[in-house]
């Protein structure tokens, strides 16, 4: 029976190791969350964006409780280093996401960074932001088999209903 943890195994570890230390990792993520709330769309390495996503969504869940809630206010105070964004969080983002049950962010991958490191980059944005959309939803072309069959069915239904 193994009583000690072997050094190089990390099965089941959820949190990535970023920055210089656990404190530095939290500071990094805090800066990213602040930037996301301020600019509503940021471009950053994919690992950091992925790590930050969970924290940002939980912050919005806390904000949905309302700004009279003591815990929500303490969370917002910790996570947003720029204090004018606390107002934005509770007055703009909480009402915007009130109808949504979850997943307030969108994470999309971008071509790798141009520099020497060729890092895997991602863009993370809050849904419903006023900026131009990154991906246009594409509808299937009219020439696909299913769409042609549906078109024929609709025509038949109209012909049957018309006279």
């Amino acid at each position, binding site marked *: 029976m193994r009583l000690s943890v072997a050094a190089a195994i990390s099965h089941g570890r959820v949190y990535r190791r970023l920055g210089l230390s656990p404190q530095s990792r939290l500071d990094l993520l805090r800066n990213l969350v602040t930037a996301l709330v301020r600019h509503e769309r940021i471009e950053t390495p994919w690992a950091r964006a992925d790590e930050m996503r969970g924290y940002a969504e939980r912050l919005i869940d806390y904000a949905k409780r309302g700004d009279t809630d003591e815990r929500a206010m303490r969370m917002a105070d910790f996570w947003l280093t720029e204090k004018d964004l606390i*107002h934005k969080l509770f007055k703009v983002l909480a009402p915007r996401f009130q109808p949504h049950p979850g997943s307030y962010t969108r994470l999309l991958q971008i071509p790798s960074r141009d520099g020497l490191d060729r890092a895997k980059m991602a863009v993370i944005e809050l849904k419903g932001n006023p900026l131009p959309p990154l991906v246009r939803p594409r509808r299937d072309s009219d020439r696909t088999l299913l769409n042609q069959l549906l078109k024929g069915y609709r025509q038949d239904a109209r012909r049957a209903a018309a006279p």
Partner: protein
Amino acid sequence: ALVVVCSPLPRLRALLQRCWERLERGLWPGVLGGQSPPWGPALAVQGPVLLPQGINDARESSAEAPSLLESILWMAAPKKRRTVEVNRCRRRHPSKLIEVKRNIDVCPECGNLKQKHVLCGYCYAKVKAETRLIRMEMHKKEGGPFNAPTVETVVLYDGEKPSEKDEGKRIIERARKRPSWFVQN
């Protein structure tokens, strides 16, 4: 050791028996007969004790060679030149070759190549340039740092009026025609 030789000729049998006896005598000379083994000291003489210099010389001469061999650090070295066939087998092994990517597609908007799970670089650069200009307008409107608005924002282009949905939102004006890919909601 009993050796049974079945031969029809008795002379051959006798010859073989004599050969076998001679062999046995040669192998175990002291076993058969009463003769003692041939080796042994024929003459035992009390020899003189070796001189101390002689002992030291012997020790030095015997100790020098092993110390020389032990002090060298033996390292691995190739015995033979690797032939070009062996080298080719190693260099062209599938695990060493660069994988061919099969997830490259054509972007339906601009026609540039893109990976299937990645955004198109050209389209993203287009959107990035436009967002940069919009953010410059926002910055001008806010005036200074840390003036994040407490209302939603709407971006309007040339000749557009805010609709009923855009009540109470901060309006950002852009002095150009609306691009086709920025659909107004």
